[in-house]
């Protein structure tokens, strides 16, 4: 297939990037990349983590300056040194991490950095509120007002505020860096309605996402980066997921998930009518030995909150659990760990790893007493222990003394998993284990899950990626709005049924809780 799109259109692109290279000390983040954003078009930018997508966004919005190469705006060479310059030239970005001031109002978030002032320099609150209301009207937003504080909005609503903010600059190019990462399917649909509306108004949209679903439903054209290099471009029509994956990874990644070798054994973890006052209720399931139990649901369906209770981070208000046949009532994570239960949290950076510490210190952290057999640290034993798990997980690091924060996301995740394998658990809970890690590391984690269950461990896999859950799990628990909708055998179900259950197309009767 053609790697280069023949430029059939004669109009000058709104924005053209030519041979941009960006070097940081010791790293070349971008190496001669190019792309074109045209009027009334959604361009999807794809690439694994570390491909240089975010670096390019920062160059386009004036946060970074390119080492070499040129950006053209309507055919005219430009170079921005601040976000305001980019705005003034009609380019706005909605960043991956929401750039929001949660203690301030919607109006203030929109006008921060370019306020409207009265004569004399005082702020003109009245006009700013009016203009904000006008922007919200234009986007058809009715569920919050300009004076609402941002902390009272949902993640999806915050994204809409970002869109409104971009419009307040009267931009012609909108860059959206993974806007759907934290949104539910319904919220994504709502966002796309607005994106299409903007596209039809003639704006150019650069859309960055990891989710192929999104790309196929919203994008018109695509461009792929790989390791900072340009890897291909074209129209979305006429390519499929495999083509894109091949371009992104430079090879075709085996989408083959595990083949089930073992039969699930006796129940290990039994959860019976577990309730939480605000987050979930009436949860009952069994996890058997050597089984992968998938938990699927939209973000905000209570999956992680349930896992927090099982791991002892929060308390349930009623219901009971048994672990290996014995009653299990974790009051603290330590209770869970000592009972043979491990938890790889969703938030790797803040909850999973201790980023400023070394690989070795991280891997041994949960098993220190076991390794040393006492109070005194024993560096040789610790290193031996850490090395064992580092090589088991094929960790790429220069040494055990490397600071975890300097590793790639995938390798950080391996460190966290290594830490928990070290405690030799019976049950391991993986909460979004492949979120934000690249295709290669993902495949690695997938094959590793298979190895774990083959060795007799039981796995709870919480994931928002349906193919992952369907491919890895033996059974799937579907959750919606804090309730269990169904427990399905993977073999007897399909993508459509699971999505229907999770989004509430199929209704499920209400259940009750004594608390």
């Amino acid at each position, binding site marked *: 297939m053609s790697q280069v799109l023949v430029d059939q259109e004669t109009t000058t692109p709104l924005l053209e990037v030519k041979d941009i290279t960006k070097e940081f000390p010791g790293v070349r983040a971008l190496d001669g990349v190019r792309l074109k954003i045209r009027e009334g078009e959604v361009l999807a930018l794809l690439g694994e983590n570390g491909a240089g997508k975010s670096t390019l966004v920062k160059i386009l919005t004036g946060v970074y300056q390119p080492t070499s190469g040129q950006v053209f705006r309507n055919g005219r060479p430009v170079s921005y040194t601040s976000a305001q310059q980019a705005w003034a030239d009609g380019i706005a970005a909605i960043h991956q991490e929401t750039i929001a001031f949660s203690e301030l109002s919607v109006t203030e978030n929109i006008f921060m950095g370019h306020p409207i002032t009265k004569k004399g320099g005082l702020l003109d609150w009245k006009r700013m509120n009016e203009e904000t209301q006008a922007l919200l009207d234009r986007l058809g937003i009715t569920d919050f007002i300009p004076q609402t504080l941002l902390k009272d909005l949902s993640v999806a609503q915050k994204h809409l505020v970002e869109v409104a903010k971009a419009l307040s600059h009267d931009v012609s190019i909108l860059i959206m860096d993974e806007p759907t990462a934290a949104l539910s399917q319904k919220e994504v649909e709502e966002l796309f309605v607005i994106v299409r509306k903007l596209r039809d108004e003639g704006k150019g949209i650069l859309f960055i996402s990891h989710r192929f679903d999104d790309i196929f439903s919203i994008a018109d054209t695509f461009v792929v980066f790989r390791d900072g290099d340009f890897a291909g471009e074209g129209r979305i029509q006429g390519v499929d997921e495999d083509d894109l994956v091949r371009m992104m990874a430079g090879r075709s990644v085996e989408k083959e998930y595990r083949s089930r070798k073992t039969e699930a054994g006796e129940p290990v973890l039994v959860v019976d009518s577990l309730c939480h006052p605000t987050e979930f209720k009436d949860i009952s399931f069994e996890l058997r030995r050597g089984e992968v139990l998938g938990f699927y649901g939209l973000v905000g369906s209570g999956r992680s909150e349930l896992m927090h209770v099982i791991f002892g981070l929060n308390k349930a208000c009623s219901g009971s659990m048994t672990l290996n046949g014995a009653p299990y009532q974790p009051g603290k994570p*330590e209770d869970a760990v000592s009972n043979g239960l491990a938890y790889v949290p969703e938030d790797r950076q803040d909850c999973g790893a201790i980023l400023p510490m070394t690989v070795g210190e991280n891997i041994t952290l949960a098993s220190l007493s076991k390794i040393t057999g006492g109070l*005194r640290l024993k560096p040789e034993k610790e290193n031996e222990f850490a*090395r064992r798990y580092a*090589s088991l997980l094929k960790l790429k690091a220069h*040494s055990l003394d490397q600071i975890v924060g300097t590793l790639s996301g995938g390798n950080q995740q391996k460190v966290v998993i290594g830490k928990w394998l070290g405690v030799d658990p019976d049950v391991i809970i993986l909460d979004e284990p492949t979120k934000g890690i690249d295709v290669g590391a993902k495949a690695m984690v997938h094959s590793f899950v298979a190895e774990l269950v083959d060795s007799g461990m039981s796995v709870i896999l919480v994931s928002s990626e349906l193919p992952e859950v369907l491919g890895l799990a033996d059974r799937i628990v579907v959750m919606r709005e804090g309730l269990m909708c169904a427990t399905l055998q993977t073999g007897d179900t399909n993508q459509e049924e699971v999505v229907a259950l999770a989004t509430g197309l199929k209704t499920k009767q209400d259940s009750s809780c004594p608390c």
Partner: protein
Amino acid sequence: MEQVIKSYEIPDSLPQGLLDRLRSREALLLLLLGLTVLINSLLSPYFLDIYNLADSTQNFSEKGIIVLSMALVIIGQEIDISVASIIALSGVLMGAAASFGCGTGTVVLVGLASGTLAGALNGLLVTRLDLPSIIVTIGTMSLYRGIAFIILGDRAYTSFPDGFQAIGQAYFFDDLVPSQFIVFVMLAAGVWYFLHHTVYGRRLFAIGNNPTGAKYSGIRVDNYRLGLLTLNGFMSGLAAIMLVSRIATARPNMAPGWELEIITMTILGGVSIFGGMGKMPGVILAVLLIGMVQFGMQLNNIPGVIMSIFTGALLVVSLVLPILLGKFFSGRK
């Protein structure tokens, strides 16, 4: 798949050059300590007198005792501003106990117990109510010293049992080394071992670097916080015993401004104010450095305030220098 990485065996550590060691904070502090000793011995013939030198340790050891536990507190991402007030409260309570005719043992017990309880209250407020330690201890700083004032007003207790006074006025090794310094050295060794060679120390670093991550790793973070603040109270009580028994006086306004001096020494020793970083050798060197500078100034009749200028400037400079030098070196690369 032509290029398969054969081995994922990774080495324990990269070789560390001599230059890296020399660039460490400990090396800087050691250099400064050497310079201080050199300059002082040139300025005053009495400085290098072994008896004078040994005697001078009395002055900084009381603060030094608290610096040791303060280092642990700050590494654990907490802070304690109430230490000087705990000294005042413990001191006054010991004075009260003595005035009721209690013996040496009871007075010591009162000192240690009141310090420990005051620290535990800090810890309970921080852990049970989930409050920031800086504000809690600003509050208890007023509260503890305030209680001392309520008990004693502007008076002072000056009569203590002889046995009690002997604690802070005793010398060991041929009347050479004051008891304060012996206590400091023993505690320093203990804290050093605790921080760098035990499982607890490692977990403390994890807590200091990322409390949430530590909690998710099955570490009882709140127990550590409670323990640290209680320990800091205990050490303050101990310092109060050493101080009160030395000067045989207890008044509510004693140890003024010590809390900030103690924190200054801790940070000068290389403990990061953000937690998670710090080494005991650096902290101990910082205590010795300040002690030696202070002693030299005393010999040369320089007032104590000048000393505090020096300490404050040293703290800021020790943080600015690496930044400026860093810019300089990276600019040359």
